[in-house]
């Protein structure tokens, strides 16, 4: 199996124009992703994780102000490719996405098989018959029998609709699938069913995922590596084992302390304060106003990315000289 980088993101920044000022939703983010690997991006709401995902597939909102950096897919910079080429060759063909709450966005008047087959007809110019055949195959793969393929969305349960949405993201054989809170509207048992499905697909199709969620316990079901986002920045990125064993940013540690677990006797802690406004983020380390271990330097100077070990970086001064 090849072990090359599928995706390389370098110094990626996004900002939006609003009436109150410019929002720096994504600030100078770099990471890479190998084929077959899953990166989970966790953070509180408003930390920019969905902006990042939408940025990767270049679905910018209208009030976009600034786009900077590089996104290399298989070595090719796709961030500044012209829109028509990106739409035809990259979006959905190479990178697809499962949107948050997408199961509620299925078209109510079209049969699900048609909705799944649509990208094949649009992007590949396939005729209806073979597109439907392939759509039924993929629906079978995600556990929807052909009897249900001929039904309308309202006839399906929430879990089944979510499976349909996943089938839509897989139908074009993309290399990279972005999952934005793929289970957030589902019940716990249904959620586990979907996680099982995603796990199985990853293995069978050697898929590469970027998995975005606020639910840390859930990431353990899928992630090989973890990225923690805070106020538009990745403050720590690490292999998943180190995320639990050696969290090196104060925010990561506090986040881990706030995860409720059923087993074990851990007492829960909350993180005081709330995330900062991204219109005028705090100086220095963006977490310093909420950090219990804040030092003078944190308030004035942005911390560099400290290398803890191979593949493990944290933006926190406490790692100085460790």
């Amino acid at each position, binding site marked *: 199996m090849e072990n090359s980088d599928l995706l390389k993101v370098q110094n990626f920044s996004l900002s939006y124009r609003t009436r109150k000022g410019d929002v720096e939703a994504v600030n100078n983010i770099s990471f890479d992703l190998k084929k077959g690997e899953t990166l989970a991006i966790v953070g509180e709401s408003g930390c920019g994780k969905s902006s990042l995902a939408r940025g990767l597939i270049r679905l910018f909102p209208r009030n976009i102000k600034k786009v900077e950096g590089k996104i290399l897919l298989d070595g090719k910079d796709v961030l500044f490719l012209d829109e028509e080429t990106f739409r035809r060759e990259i979006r959905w063909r190479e990178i697809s996405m499962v949107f948050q709450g997408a199961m509620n966005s299925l078209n109510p008047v079209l049969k699900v098989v048609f909705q799944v087959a649509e990208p094949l007809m649009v992007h590949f110019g396939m005729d209806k018959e073979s597109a439907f055949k392939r759509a039924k195959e993929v629906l079978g793969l995600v556990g929807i029998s052909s009897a249900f393929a001929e039904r309308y969305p309202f006839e399906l349960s929430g879990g089944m609709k979510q499976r349909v949405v996943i089938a839509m993201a897989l139908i074009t054989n993309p290399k990279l699938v972005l999952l934005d809170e793929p289970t957030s509207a589902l019940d716990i*048992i249904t959620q*586990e069913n979907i996680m*099982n499905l995603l796990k199985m697909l990853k293995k069978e199709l050697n898929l590469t995922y970027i998995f975005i969620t606020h639910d840390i316990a859930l990431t*353990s079901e899928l992630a090989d590596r973890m990225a923690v986002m805070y106020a538009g920045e990745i403050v720590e990125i690490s292999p998943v084992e180190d995320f639990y064993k050696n969290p090196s940013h104060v925010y990561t540690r506090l986040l881990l302390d706030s995860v409720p*677990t*059923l087993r074990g006797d851990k007492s829960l802690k*909350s993180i005081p304060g*709330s995330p900062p406004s991204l219109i005028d983020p705090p100086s220095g380390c963006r977490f310093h106003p909420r950090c219990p271990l804040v030092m003078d330097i944190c308030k004035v100077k942005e911390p560099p990315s400290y290398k803890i070990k191979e593949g493990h970086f944290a933006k926190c001064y406490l790692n100085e000289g460790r």
Partner: protein
Amino acid sequence: MNNELLRVEELKVWFDIKKGLFSRPLYVKAVDGVNFALNIGESVSLVGESGSGKTTLGKTILRLYRPTSGKIIFDGKDISNSDSKDMKWYRRETGLVQQDPFGALPPHFNIYRILEEPLIIHNIGNRSERRDMIYRALEEVKLTPVEDFAPKYPHMLSGGQMQRVVIARALIMRPKLVVADEPVSMLDASVRVEILELLKSMQDRHKTSLIYITHDLATVRMFTHWIFIMYAGEIVERALTKELLANPLHPYTNALLNAIPDPDPENRNVLKEVPPGEPPDLVNPPIGCRFAPRCSQSKDICFKERPPELEIRDKHWVKCWLYS
């Protein structure tokens, strides 16, 4: 002996979706035969998937819905069919914390006015006494300095702060019973713990009984005395929290517990055992045990007869043929 606050007997709440004059009427059997008792100051977590009837049960206990049959006995009085005149005292003894703080607060009232409203309705205190009560309530939910918060309007607050106002409003009458319906599901993970701790401390301080409705078993562990597990309109298992987590008996409880992800990176390498399918349609629920079609241990009888509710261990009831 009697410090029982609430007793629910064979409670049924059916909603009619089709009235029948000549044809058979159709009902959604949202709550179908629920029994339990709760002592003063005790708290219970009502856990179940969406559509299991947990919100309907909570709202019926507050008499926001009228039960189809069965009894709700609060403080020795049967309130299951009292009309609204007799209900005023009951409204005073109970409080509700809604799921969605963004929709629960009237946008054109400031916080002071929102908290004053129940006091005015129930004719409590004069102007300055009310003021003291409101300030004390705000202090208790840690919206300080109170002088700053009182004149604010809901849209000026964050989600967590709004939920604190909702809690303050539910508790300002010092009710004996509070129903909190998914009070943290709309909030960020870092704020959730804070709100839950606040609810718990209020409950400890004022000996308020609390019914905490949630789908998230992971948050209930250190929170309430009891756990009731609901499935398809029934309480399938109920026990003290520790006992239930240590000795889950019902296959559905086991499935729920299993489904909760533990933060362990090993998880990604294994597939979990999860019951297939979805909860049943409550218009035509299965004849026997309602979980039988999804249950890996079901026997013949499970499909034919509804299992009785039995106390298998001390204060541990379960509705399952495996134990009968």
